[in-house]
């Protein structure tokens, strides 16, 4: 896949290997279904779904999911007064709860 916009060559630690938008591969890092749900939500909202990248990190009992999207898609993912971002956090939280992990979603402004 091509990585567009703003990504350093050093960014090799990308969770996203999939090309098929319906594929479930490549999401098996910590946070399993939470990562899959977050990627799906972000890709569905983005004009540039290929730019959506989620990186996960364990932090004392929580999984931090860092969401990167194309700069032009930031507004869409956040929504008016953060409403869409809040909804995303709720839905990712539910997925995490099923796997008994607490999730934190960081929407990263690259």
């Amino acid at each position, binding site marked *: 896949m091509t990585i567009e916009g703003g990504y350093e060559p050093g960014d090799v630690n990308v969770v996203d290997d999939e090309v098929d938008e319906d594929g479930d591969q490549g999401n098996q890092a910590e946070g399993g279904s939470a990562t899959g749900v977050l990627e799906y939500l972000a890709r569905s*909202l983005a004009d540039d779904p290929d730019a959506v990248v989620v990186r996960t990190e364990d932090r004392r009992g929580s999984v931090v999911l860092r969401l990167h999207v194309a700069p032009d898609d930031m507004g*869409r993912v956040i*929504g008016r007064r953060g409403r869409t971002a809040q*909804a*995303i956090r709720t*839905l990712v939280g*539910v997925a995490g709860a099923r796997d008994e992990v607490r999730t934190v979603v960081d929407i990263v402004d690259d």
Partner: protein
Amino acid sequence: MAEGMTLQEQAEVAREFLEGLVERYGLDAAVEVRELDEETVELAATGEGLGILVGPKGATLAALQDVTRAVVQRRFPTRTDRILVDVAGYRERRAAALRRFSQEVASEVASSGELRALEPMSPADRKVVHDTIVEIEGVESRSEGEDPNRYVVIAPTATANVDA
């Protein structure tokens, strides 16, 4: 690109999105599309284990609806139709309970002659109350206050002010 897109096309985008999302939770749902009026469509998901997508007091369902609307809006930015999402019949059960409650309050108001102000509610819930009260003789309803604290007042017909 969005010009002339129909409500059905929007519903189709919403349905595909919801089915895909449910799958990401490892669940399976059938999503039924119901056109409630010419600018309102409801997507009702049913299936095993979908309760997690309703959440406490419907909070997860509200999030699901927000995101679904945002997804549809991206594709159809010029349309302002209303997309409703229901999961496991939650909205329907809630509406039924709200109708029963409204009827109880209406009969109290009718017999006591004193108006009652209800708790603040969403526009959708207020509509359920208004639609129920309009069918009952001797009482009227109106909304007062500003969202998100807008609430319904049920009053005896004689003293009710005119309002929407």
